[in-house]
């Protein structure tokens, strides 16, 4: 009997080591076997949580895990290579995304412009009637190039162009250029969408660069010397590149020191006024001529206004000849045609 007792005792001990697989809960736990998740809506016991926190939480976790394992064992099982496997159902809990959902595709520059201006895309017909070829021709795609070739089998050389230019080659070049430009614009759109920095300086070539870009390129190039362009000569009416963000591109272009000096404003202003007023005027030839003319005119007027005095100025001429008067008039003298030795009019 001792043996039986011992065996039973041992069995009891072993049973004590394991807790029962049934778990009592006030409220039923929510189970999502698919994602191996159990949610316990019951309240925690405050006293136990305060006194024996770790043990209580461990026991609670075990109980809940037991419930989950119970639920798994209820699933149909099968044996694969010595191990028992259960197929989990689809998870029912909706988990949030890891990353934020992608937004709408960023608009290209043209699309943005079109949206602003309210331009809508007009759908073109797939085929258009060509008057020259007298047939229906595809607007794009298959057999389009062929139709073009049929249509423009001869090209006119413009009058001002070199007669030996290959107009066909020119046309191809023009098209290639357009394709290249489009490619650049596509790249720019991608860069813009990704909000990356685009290189703003550098020479893009005479076809692609705008006048502002050219100006910036010139300004940057000029200041890219060892002495940051201090000794570069300037063209007579050269402009400096201006605009947003241009200054950062120019090497050595530091932020200017504040224009507010220690000198009181009033004195500074007075000094500036003095320098402005004391500026030597340029020799204005036109003005000088005008003044000269004016003087002459005044003189003439003064002369004209004076009454004709007798011998006013010319007093010091020949001795005391006072009344010079006017030149004698002709046809007034007395003629004496009969007398000899006297021809013509009578001389005074």
């Amino acid at each position, binding site marked *: 009997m001792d043996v039986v007792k011992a065996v039973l005792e041992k069995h009891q001990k072993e049973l004590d080591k394991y807790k029962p697989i049934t778990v009592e809960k006030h409220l039923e736990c929510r189970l999502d076997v698919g994602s191996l998740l159990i949610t316990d809506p019951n309240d925690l016991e405050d006293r136990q949580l305060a006194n024996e926190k770790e043990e209580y939480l461990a026991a609670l976790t075990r109980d809940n895990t037991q419930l989950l394992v119970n639920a798994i064992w209820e699933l149909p099982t099968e044996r694969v290579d010595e191990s028992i496997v259960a197929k989990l159902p689809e998870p029912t809990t909706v988990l949030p995304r890891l990353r934020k959902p992608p937004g709408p595709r960023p608009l290209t520059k043209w699309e943005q412009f079109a949206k602003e201006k309210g331009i809508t895309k007009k759908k073109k017909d797939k085929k258009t009637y060509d008057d020259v070829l007298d047939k229906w021709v595809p607007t794009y795609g298959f057999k389009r190039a062929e139709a073009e070739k049929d249509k423009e089998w001869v090209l006119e050389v413009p009058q001002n162009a070199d007669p030996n230019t290959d107009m066909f080659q020119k046309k191809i070049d023009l098209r290639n250029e357009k394709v290249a430009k489009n490619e650049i614009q596509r790249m720019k759109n991608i860069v813009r969408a990704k909000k990356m920095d685009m290189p703003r300086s550098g020479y893009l070539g005479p076809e692609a660069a705008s006048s502002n870009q050219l100006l910036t390129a010139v300004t940057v190039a000029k200041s890219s010397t060892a002495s940051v362009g201090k000794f570069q000569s300037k063209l007579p009416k050269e402009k400096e590149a201006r605009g947003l963000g241009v200054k950062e591109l120019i090497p050595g272009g530091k932020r200017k020191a504040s224009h*507010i000096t220690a000198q009181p404003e*009033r004195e500074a*202003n*007075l000094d*500036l*006024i003095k320098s402005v007023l004391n500026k030597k005027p340029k020799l204005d030839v*036109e*003005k000088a001529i*005008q003044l000269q003319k004016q003087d002459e*005119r005044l003189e003439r007027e003064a002369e004209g206004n004076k009454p004709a005095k007798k011998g006013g100025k010319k007093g010091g001429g020949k001795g005391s000849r006072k009344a010079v008067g006017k030149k004698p008039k002709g046809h007034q003298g007395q003629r004496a045609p009969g007398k000899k030795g006297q021809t013509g009019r009578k001389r005074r």
Partner: protein
Amino acid sequence: MKRLTEERTKVLFEKLAKYIGSNVQQLIDRPDGTYCFREHKDRVYYVSERILKLSECFGYKQLVCVGTCFGKFSKTNKLKFHITALYYLAPYAQYKVWVKPSFEQQYLYGNHIPKSGLGRITENAGQYQGVVVFSMNDLALGFGVLARSTTECKTADPLTTVCFHQSDIGEYIRAEDSLF
């Protein structure tokens, strides 16, 4: 409100000197307190320091106008005077043009002054000299630039423009929104 840069101050004084010559000094060198020029949204204001102090309570965006607006700087750093500057230009003006009563209205509508509208003119004014335009009873009407020098005016025929219109007091009504 910020102080004008030296470059802009120079532009301002050069422009002022065109109209009032050496009297520019009197705008700064005043017996009745210190006056200064300030810049706000590219406009130049002539303010007494006392009022300037009061204006400092307001932020850049809230502030519309302080003192007298003299003019506006263009993007290329050129200064254009507004009619509001006339109050300070007229008493100091060195070269003046008087307009006949019959032409007054025409001038106030923004037209250039032809020889026929010219009443009187200061002697010795050169071409492109800045002038203040007065009516015959000495009311300042605006300012402009001489198209002909005084001597040329005398010989010019009646329809030629003598003085280019730059600004007139009609602008208080015509350009009310952009003036200050």
